[in-house]
């Protein structure tokens, strides 16, 4: 079972995240970056399936040059190799364009399963797996809290508001996972050393057969017109409980017509 894991490098939530004033894209240069947290769960799930089924785990990431740091982390967790799509022409690509570019990269690989995170902390769009599935004509199994593989059949439990659905598809399939699925391992010292020697292929647009006019800011199907920084929320009234705290809260809610 060959598995591709899609890993995204994102600004750390703790960092002050900004948009670039000149072209209104995410400022990735001035902030600390980390692996999108849920993607660690995606890597972990791939490694667990591999331990059971054999095959190779390949990391795929589209990111500027410093994306290598995040790719190395995934390799140090235990993935076998990586493909890094990096080209200045990708700057400013939106989700739809990113799915086109990632689909092209996936087209250069042989896989049974693609595993992604359910949502990235920067965009919070949570649409990469449906976009990819639709493009590739492959099944989309999104929001998995459990994945089981049985021959050429993948089955997931998918979280719903009041329980879960069991959804099944044939490989190759595109799966996204939620945080409940497992507990990601920490890279070991040995893993970190080994990661430095693992194969990492860097692709440009041309290498992946990506048409330059279908990616990048200028041709993005969604465009940011303007943005503004919102003043942080102001603290309101703070009241100490004197035995009538519950009543005080109720009075506040009533004053706001919320009850």
């Amino acid at each position, binding site marked *: 079972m060959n598995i591709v894991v899609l890993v995204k490098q994102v600004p750390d939530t*703790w960092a002050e995240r900004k948009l670039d004033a000149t072209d209104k894209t995410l400022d990735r240069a001035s902030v600390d970056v980390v692996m999108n947290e849920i993607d660690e769960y995606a890597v972990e799930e791939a490694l667990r399936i591999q331990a059971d089924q054999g095959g190779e785990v390949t990391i795929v990431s589209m990111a500027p040059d410093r994306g290598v740091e995040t790719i190395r982390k995934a390799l140090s967790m235990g993935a076998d190799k990586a493909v890094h799509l990096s080209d200045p022409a990708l700057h400013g690509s939106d989700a739809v364009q990113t*799915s086109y570019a990632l689909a092209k990269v996936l087209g250069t690989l042989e896989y049974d399963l693609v595993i992604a995170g359910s949502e990235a902390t920067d965009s919070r769009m949570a649409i990469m797996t449906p976009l990819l599935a639709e493009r590739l004509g492959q099944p989309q199994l999104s929001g998995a809290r459990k994945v089981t593989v049985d021959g050429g059949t993948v089955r997931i439990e998918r979280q719903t508001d009041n329980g879960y659905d069991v*959804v099944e598809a044939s490989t190759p399939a595109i799966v996204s996972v939620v945080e409940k699925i497992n507990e990601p391992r920490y890279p070991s010292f040995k893993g970190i050393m080994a990661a430095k020697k693992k194969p990492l292929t860097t692709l440009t647009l041309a290498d992946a057969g990506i048409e330059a006019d279908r990616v990048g800011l200028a041709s993005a199907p969604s465009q940011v017109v303007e943005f503004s920084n919102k003043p942080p929320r102001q603290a309101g009234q703070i009241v100490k409980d004197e035995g009538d705290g519950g009543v005080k809260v109720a009075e506040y809610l009533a004053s706001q017509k919320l009850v």
Partner: protein
Amino acid sequence: MSEVLVLVDHVEGAPKKVSYELLTLARELGTPSAVVLGKGASAAAEKLAAYGAEKVYVCEAEEIDGFLTGPKAAVLAQLITEKSPVAVLVPSNAEGKEVGARTAVKVGSGIITDAVGLTSDLVAEQPIFGGTVSVKSQVASGVPIIAVRPNSTAPVEAPGAGTVEQVTATFSDSDKAAKVVDRVIESKGGRPALADASVVVSGGRGMGGAENFGIVEALADSLGAAVGASRAATDAGWYPHQNQVGQTGQTVSPQLYIAVGISGAIQHRAGMQTSKTIVAVNKDPEAPIFELADFGLVGDLFTVVPQLTEEIGKRKG
């Protein structure tokens, strides 16, 4: 005026509130047409007409509930091609975004998610980075597909004709690639879904254990609210994971968010910061949640919250 398609979120023909909100918004953009898909869809027509739907496109093909999102996107894409609407509005929840995304690829459109406002020239307002930056954006190619967050606008009734049109759809093999083999109900339900609720009451580590979540549930029920939880509470197994609010949980933007025994870590805030009114109950006056609370009560939740629930009960009579 040109048509605006609204993808209706419903449970066996009972539309969720977000559907009425989307119809209300759609009236500002053109003539709203509701698209209702799946089991019981035709039962929704009258209710949707009350909120301005001039047309109600109905498709009850079995495939729609039998497979994940692919068939819904196929119907929506077919309607876009046939009707050339000026825009398509979908709910910005997990399913709405997935259907929207697949549809965008099918018809070659751009998609915007998490819109909280929309101007008549289709510029969407989106809060990003946990609400610290507000972005105005636009779809530049194809028919704009815009996912709008629940609670972005108040639903206002306005009668529409509600003419029902049955849609006959054809599905490709790849639309039917992910088969739903079972639907398991774990919780009894009865409470609104977290993402759509206009009031959310969340409990955190301060609850002290699963057995105490009844305190939060009782308050939620007195307000008709959904129940949320911090990651500390879901990780401890005190409350189901699907109720987690925050960076790695759900994003909520209700009229009222009540945080009980939650410190207000940045990752929790990321999922609730855009709530209209925030109330916090915490015994630690230094808890960061108070920095963004409109009303903060410093006290022990085990006495304050039951008293609050009782007081709300009294006021309701």
